[in-house]
């Protein structure tokens, strides 16, 4: 599949006399293939929005290479801008214009046919409120308007930064369906969000960024599999046999955590070996269940941002990978 978005070794450094130098992007890589819904994840301050702003020509990079739809940006941005719809961070509009005015002015500036305005208003559910001033809108309605403005171009690549922010549960579900429908129609969608359950549900692939570097990327299933700890939960016929079973398994090199009525095993490649080991000692398993990981736990593990009781994590306290060669946790390097 051809790549519609490619980033290689992207660097952005902010220098301040008071605060010193901060690398917002430190050799960041990213690739999104055509027709995918791609999740772009990272803790606060990890560089997600900086990446998107840089990609869209709002921020000048200090190094690296970027391409959109096969064109090198920012040089070719004027040529591809008409095919890239984007919202970056919180939706911002002139408060005294109506939604229809806002979209009409954007459509007029971009040479989009006015009929498209009604189409996108219908699509995001603002048809009946389009004549009201934006200042009267709730955050969720502004979010819908932002998505509508991004869809106005009928783009080949849609970049949405936190599109579900402020949406009600119904709105989140509608947004999810919309994303899938857009992807099925051939549009590539890049979705930056902290609602990891949503990302896991609707995305084909993900990129996880931490402190300006990629810490994981690839299809969602592969990322989950690669970061699955091989955890298995077992129960025995007799609870009294749990200490013996723990002893047998520990001697076999398996990490065991005891619980009152079950054992949690870590680093188990083949669950069948567990039943065989225990059966050889006359210990019989009544339940053996691999423990599935979800994107949230992988994210927290990869970025080291899981909350720790009694500690207050600061925004820049997350994982930083050592170098560019370590950034590909599940996939290959540039162009893989």
């Amino acid at each position, binding site marked *: 599949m051809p790549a519609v978005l490619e980033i290689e070794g992207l660097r952005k450094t902010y220098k301040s006399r008071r605060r010193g130098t901060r690398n917002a992007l430190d050799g960041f890589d990213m690739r999104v293939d055509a027709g995918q819904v791609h999740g772009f994840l990272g803790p606060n301050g990890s560089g997600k929005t900086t990446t998107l702003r840089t990609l869209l020509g709002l921020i000048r990079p200090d190094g690296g290479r970027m391409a959109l739809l096969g064109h090198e940006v920012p040089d070719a941005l004027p040529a591809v801008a008409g095919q890239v719809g984007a919202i970056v961070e919180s939706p911002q*509009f002139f408060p005294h214009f109506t939604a229809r005015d806002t979209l009409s002015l954007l459509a007029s500036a971009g040479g989009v046919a006015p009929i498209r305005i009604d189409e996108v208003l219908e699509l995001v559910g603002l048809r009946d409120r389009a004549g009201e001033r934006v200042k009267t809108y709730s955050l969720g309605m502004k979010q819908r308007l932002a998505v509508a403005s991004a869809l106005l171009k009928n783009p080949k690549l849609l970049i949405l930064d936190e599109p579900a922010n402020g949406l009600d549960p119904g709105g989140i579900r509608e947004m999810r369906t919309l994303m899938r429908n857009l992807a099925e129609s051939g549009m590539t969608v890049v979705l930056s969000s902290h609602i990891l359950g949503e990302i896991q549900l609707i995305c084909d692939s993900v990129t996880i960024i931490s402190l300006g570097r990629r810490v994981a990327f690839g299809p969602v299933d592969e990322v989950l599999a690669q970061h699955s700890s091989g955890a298995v939960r077992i129960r025995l016929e007799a609870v009294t046999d749990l200490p013996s079973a723990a002893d047998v398994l520990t001697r076999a090199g398996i990490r065991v955590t005891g619980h009152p009525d079950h054992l949690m095993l870590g680093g188990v490649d083949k669950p069948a070996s567990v039943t065989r080991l225990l059966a050889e000692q006359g210990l019989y398993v009544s339940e053996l269940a691999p423990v599935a990981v979800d994107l949230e736990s992988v994210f927290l593990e990869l970025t080291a941002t899981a909350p720790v009781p009694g500690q207050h994590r600061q925004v820049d306290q997350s994982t930083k990978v050592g170098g560019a060669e370590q950034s590909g946790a599940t996939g290959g390097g540039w162009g893989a």
Partner: protein
Amino acid sequence: MSLYRTELRRLAKRRFTRYMTLLGLLVLAAVVVGTFFTNQKIDASVRAQADRQAEQQYQEQVRYSQQERTACERDKAAGAADANRYPPDCAMIQPPPREAFESRWFLPSTFNFRESFAETLVPFAAILALVGFVIGASFVGAEWSTGGMMNLLLWRPRRLTVLLTKLAALLTGLLAVTLPAAVLWFAGFWAVATFRGSTEKVTSGVWQSFALTGLRGVALVLAVTTIGFALASLGRHTAMALGGVVAVMVVGQFGLGILLSMAGVRFPEAWLLPTYALAWMQKKVTLEDWQACNATFTGECRPDTFDVTWGQSSVLFAVGVAVVLGAAIWAMRRRDIS
């Protein structure tokens, strides 16, 4: 072209633009109406009335002089004359000559188009320049502060094209208001002169002079509008332009004026911007230093003078516009948008 038309639409759609334009036009209308009602046409009866008032004033002075002279002679005869009140010779108390009471002093105010219209172009340009400055600053400042500029750049990534197209649309909009307003201004004062004054001796040369002054006024409006726009774009907020101009006027003009006066600098007005704006409109402003005395052959004491010409003003304003707009363009090109 679509961007230019869009920006014109955006400018016209903004409530602030509409209200400020309306306010500016209302002030201009109030000036014309005020001038109309405070002037009067001079006809034979008004002149006769003025003659009567001049004569009456003269007669009062004659009576007063007579009374004073009588009182003087009486006090002198009584030996109680006040040396501070009366001259040594009471005959010296004489009324002013009749010709000192000119009838024209008693004429009501009248609007002479040839003599007075050029002066009205100064407030015309000043009011529209103020409106242009505020609208220009708000037009781009609000775009920056509400995120509209960022949204637009996602559609049209050529930053300079976007900024300069916005400026072009703004100046077009200002011209679209200023030119008809100027025509109405000319027409309004012509009507004032017709009904409340005089339109005599308005030759083609006079018209040409007025037209050139009007054009300089329009140029001033456009220059000030550009500066407001550029300052707000530079600071990415309307307040940057408004705050900047308040700072320049309060600190740089009033403060500087007081400081220069206290320091005894000759021609302190030569350092103040309004002098150059006035010189631009009037072609020349002559500053006078009354501390200096240049004696003439008649023994008269004349002050030193310093001329500020419209040529000097044009250089100053051209450099000012170039520097501020250049800085805005540089910032638009170089600075990150976040």
